[in-house]
Structure formats: C-alpha cells, structure tokens
C-alpha cells in the first residue's frame, strides 16, 4: 500500500506538468502559426490592394494623358478647318467667291424634294436640282449583285414571296 503510494505520488504532478506544458506549447505554436498565416494573408491582401491601386492610378493617368492627346489632336484638326485657313487655301488654289448665280427653271421639278431637303437640314443651291430617286430604284440598288445559290437562295425566295404575300393581303 505504502509502496504503491510511493510509486504514484512523486510522478503524477511532474508528468502532468510536462504534458500540460507540451500541450500548451503546441497550442501556442498553433495559434502563432495561425496568427502568422492570418497576418501573412492580410499583408498579401493589403499588398495586392495597394498594387492594384497603383495600377488603377497608372491607368487613370494613362487615360488622362490619352484624353489630353486626343484633345490636342482635335484642336489641330479644327485649326486646319477654320474659315481663315480654308479661305487662304482656297485663294491659293485659285478659287473665288461665287458671283452671278443663275438658277434654272426645271420643268416638272418635284417641289417635294425641296421640302424634303429643307426638313433634313440640307442646304445648297445645287442640291435643289438633284431629282428625287424613285423608291423602286432604291430597292433595286439595295439588292445584292451576287445572290446566294442553292437552299439559301430557295429559302430567301420563299421568304420574299411570303413577305410579298403578307404585304398584299387586306
């Protein structure tokens, strides 16, 4: 009885303490590792966000630079199209302001065209003499020169016939 007490008493606290310390150490290490991992993730994330911000700013800067370049180029083009420049160029080429205009009385001239031109904001004396295109002629012009062959052509013909049929029904 006494021997069994001797056997167990001195050992129990020391072994328990060591187990406790090892366990605690393992936990501390685990927590440290986790904290380190989390910290690393946070730092990586922050770094990526920061990098992205710089990239974004670079792109913004690039966009601003391109916009400024675009504006400068537009200004150069507009400068070249300004009236004084065009007038000078026209004079160099031997042009002069038109004088003594003569208008021709065209028989059966479609007056509606004048109204059409006006409503579209088209101006210029020469345009008034352009006869209005016949609508059927416009349709003919829009048709492709090389029609598809085979099934596609047959199907197109069916569709066009159907459209024509549908359009002529009361």
């Amino acid at each position, binding site marked *: 009885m006494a*021997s069994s007490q*001797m*056997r167990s008493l*001195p*050992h129990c606290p*020391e*072994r328990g303490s*060591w187990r406790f*310390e*090892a366990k605690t*150490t393992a936990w501390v*290490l685990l927590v*440290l590792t986790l904290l380190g991992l989390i910290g690393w993730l946070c730092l990586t994330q922050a770094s990526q966000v920061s*990098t992205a*911000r*710089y990239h974004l*700013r*670079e792109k*913004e*800067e690039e966009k*601003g*630079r391109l*916009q*400024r370049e675009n*504006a*400068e180029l*537009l*200004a150069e083009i*507009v*400068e070249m*199209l*300004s*009236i*004084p420049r065009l007038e000078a160029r026209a004079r160099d080429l031997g042009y002069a302001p*038109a004088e003594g*205009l003569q*208008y*021709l*009385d065209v028989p059966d*001239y*479609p*007056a509606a065209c*004048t109204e059409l*031109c*006006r409503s579209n*904001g*088209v*101006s*210029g*004396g020469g*345009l*008034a003499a352009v006869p209005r295109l016949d609508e059927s002629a416009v349709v003919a012009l829009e048709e492709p020169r090389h029609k598809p062959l085979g099934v596609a052509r047959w199907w197109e013909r069916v569709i066009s016939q159907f459209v024509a049929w549908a359009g002529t029904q009361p």
Partner: protein
Amino acid sequence: MIVRGKIASQSNESSGSKEKGVRRLAFLVAVLIGLALVIVVQLIRLQVFQRVPGRGLERALPNYLPKVASQRGLIIDRRGYFLALNTFEYDVSTAPDLIEDPQDAADRLSPLLGLPSDELLSLLDQERPYVPLKQRVSKEVAEAIVSLGLKGIHLEPKLRRKYPEGELAAHPMGFVNYNCDGSYGLEGYYDLLLKGVSTMREGKVPRGEAVPIVFHQLALPQDGPHLMLTLDRNIQRLVEQELAKAVAQYDADSGTVIVMDPKTGAILAMASYPSYDPNRFYEVPLELYNNPAVSEQYEPGSVFKIITMAAGLDAGVITPQSTFYDSGMMEVGERVIQNSDRRAHGLVTMTDILARSLNVGIAYVSTSLGEERFYTYLRRFGFGCKTGIDLDGEVAGSLKVPGGSKWSKSDLGTNSFGQGIAVTPLQMITAVAAVANRGFLVKPYVVERIVDNQDLIVTQPTVVRQAVSARAAEQLTDMLVEAVERGAELATVPGYDVAGKTGTAQIPVGDRYDPELTIASFVGYAPADDPRFIALVRIDKPRVDSRGAQVAAPVFKAIAERLFVLLGVPPDSIRLAGR
C-alpha cells in the same frame, strides 16, 4: 532500492525530455526571431535605403500628378464645325525636398520657364513641401520639362478653352476664365451643364513628401455634354464681315446683326461689332463682354411701326386700304407729333404710312386703338419681358404702361413709332418674326441639341403665343413688301420679295435727344410669302449718313443676297413655278 532506483531513473529521463523540449522551444523561438530579424532587415533595406525601387512607388509618383477632372463639353455649329473645344496647359510646381541638385535644376529650367536662374534657385532651395514655379505653360514647354528627367518637378494639366475661329461668334459664345468658369453667352448660360461633374478625391500627404500617395476616389468623373448650335459658321462669318465693313464705311461706333429662322426661332447668326477674341478675353475692356444683341436696349424708332400697324390690322381699326389725312402734326397728350421730314403728306393709305414712315399716321393708328388695346398688343409681342433665349445676360427692355408712374398720355403717340420705349435687338427681331410667321410669336434659341454620351436632347421650337391673326400678318407682309420697294430700295434683292422696314432712331441723352447722332436700323424677311430668314441690322451712330434706308438697308441686302445662296433659296419666279 529497486523502486527508488526506478524512480530516480524515471526522474532523470523526465528531466532529460524536459530539457529536450526546452531546447526544441528555444530552437523554434530562435527560428522565429531569425525570421523576424530577416523581415525587419528587409523592411529597413526597402523602406530606408532602397525605398521600394522599381516596385511602383516611384512610378506612382511621376511628374504628372493626375487630377481626375471632367472634360468641358464642346460647342459645335449646326453644320458640325467646332466653335469651342478643350486644350491643356500645365502648372509647374516643385517639391524642393526631392530636388537633388537645385543649382543644376535651376539652370536647366530657367530657359524653359523664362525665369532667371537665381530666382528659380531661390524657389528650389526652400524648405517647403510645395512651391509653385509657373502657371499655364504650353504643352511644348511641359514636354521639354519632362524630357529633362528632373525629380521633384511636377506638372499639373489645366484645361484651357480654345475657340478655333477666333472672334467668330464671340458674343453669343462667351468665354471660360482661368478657373474654368464660363462667363457670358453660351459658356455662361450652360456653364454648370458644360462643366460636367468632376471627381472628388481625398489624399494623404506623408511627412516629407510633396504629393499625396494615398487616394480615395469618391466617384467617377462625368464629362459635360456637347452643345450643337443653331448658329451657322458660314452665315455668322458673312454677317460679321458685312457688319464690320458697314461700321467702317459709315464711320459708325458699333453695330449689331441678328439672323433668325422666323418659323422656329432658331438663331442662325448673331454678331456685334466691335468684338473680341475669346481666346484672349483678358486683353479687352469689360464692356466688350456684353452681348449687345440681348443686353443692350435702345429706342427702336420707325422699325416699331410694324408692331403698331400689326395691332391696328388685327384689332380691325384699320385695313391696308384705310386712308388718313396727314396734316403734318397731331397732338397726343401734351406732345405734338410730327413727321421726321416736318411735312404734311395729305391723304395717305396705311401702306403709304409704312412706305413713307409717317409718324403722324402711325400715331393715328395707336390712338385709334386706345391705350388698353395698344399696350396689350405690345405685351403680346413680348415687349417689356425677356424673350427667354438661352444666352447669358439678357435684359427685359423697358415698357412704360398706363397706370405706371412714368407713363404719360403722350407715350401712346411716341411709342407707336418707337420712341420712349426701350427694346433689345433680339426682342425687336422676335416681334417682327411673329408677323413673318403668320402671327405666331416663337421663342428664340441658340442650342439645337444637347449631346451626351448616351442621351440626345433636341430643342423643339416653342410658340409663345399668337400675337396677331394670320390674316393680319399676311396683310402686313404685303404692306411691308411695298414699303421696301418704295421706301428702302437699297434693301431689295432682284428676284425676291423682301418685306421689311427701316428705322432711324434718335438717341436719348439725359432728358433730350442727341441732335445729330442716330441709330440706323432695318429689319426684313424673305422670301416674303414663305420666309426662310429674318434679319435685323442696327448701326449705331453712323456719321456719313444717319438714315436707316441709306445705312442699314444696304447691309441687309448684302447679307440677304448671300443668304439666299447659303440657304438654297432660288428666286421667287423659279421657286413658285413648281407650285
């Protein structure tokens, strides 16, 4: 003993493993400390010695310090030509802390900035985080500065408005000042719209740095929409040339011309002389900024007889054939009205009154109408209030009405021929445009379309009211055609019927009128049966000749002749042949 020995051996074993555990822990701690030291050393190396070379920080702080500002909307004429656009200039500044060799930097920057080297050196050698060096340098200079590769020199782009046509349409356009604020004209009226929405940014400036490196952008910038105008560059040019020529030819002080589409109220051209170059607005006196077409009021003179006659015809108190015996004078209130030639013209028709511009005859019309009806018609034509045009600085003119403290009975007579009433050129042309437009008064406008990236706002012509009946307007148009043929031959254009009226207005100086100087004017529209344009010409204080028929009418003719070509209007004989 055996037990003790066993216990002792177990104790030794336990202390051995404990020591081993401690050693392991010490090893781990040493490793962690080692890693921490490596990180600290690296941080010191990167932050202090190398400052993150090539990893973006320096690239993120380039010479161009971007400021995300919105772009101001462009202004385009009705044919698509640009009248106002944006270019950029650059403000040069420095962060003296970052300058490695101030003397060298000063020497290299001096010729580019046009500043003495020692003056620059004193600026570069300061202990301040930010020092401005020069404002508004050109793109070429900015590029040259960048090519120097100097650290600590910053260039900030600043928007500069550019008007590629120079003085063309300066008054209706207005200008943009150094703070990017629009003033006068369209730039002033549409300033908030054209500006767009700039981006707000918050930045943090680290100690020792000159520029913020951490930004929080709160929103994306929105560029201002573009304005497409009713103004036509070619017509505007024509009008300005003719106006400048007339002012010089007749030795006048100034002048104004407005060309308008009477059916819609669209302003095709609006010019005043003298003008200025909005690119260099700072070089001219402030008085030139005002647009006389909308901001300057004057007594219109005989041009106003159109309005009185329209009222008489519409009210039915007269017809074109009505006759009146002109004795050469008429007493209205306390004032005796006389004709400008101080003569009596005997029995005259209403058309004669317009053709000969008889003050007595037109006073007869206004007195026949009576106070209430006459002034009601004036209000119907829009006098005494703004037209509502989309231009900055419009004034309402001045109309005295019965019951007002300044009105007297004699005003009924003098107002009938445009004395004692103050109007703007725009009010006058808008009122006469109502006669051209079958009695419908339309609101004048300058912006045809507002073009955003996705949206398009089109201005619809606005009829304010019907001032007079279509019948009265047509009768008056016929009378005005005859008035031009008989009284203003210099305004006639062969092949076209022109309806119009001259005016020679006295200029009030204090309580009296200037004995010599006048305002010569003409307002007319053509073709009379289907007007495509109406034009008002006003020449101030011409000294060669004071009469509107001699000074303003020829200017109208010169403009009208070209307008028929520019607008594609064939002569009446050809135009009406197809009807």
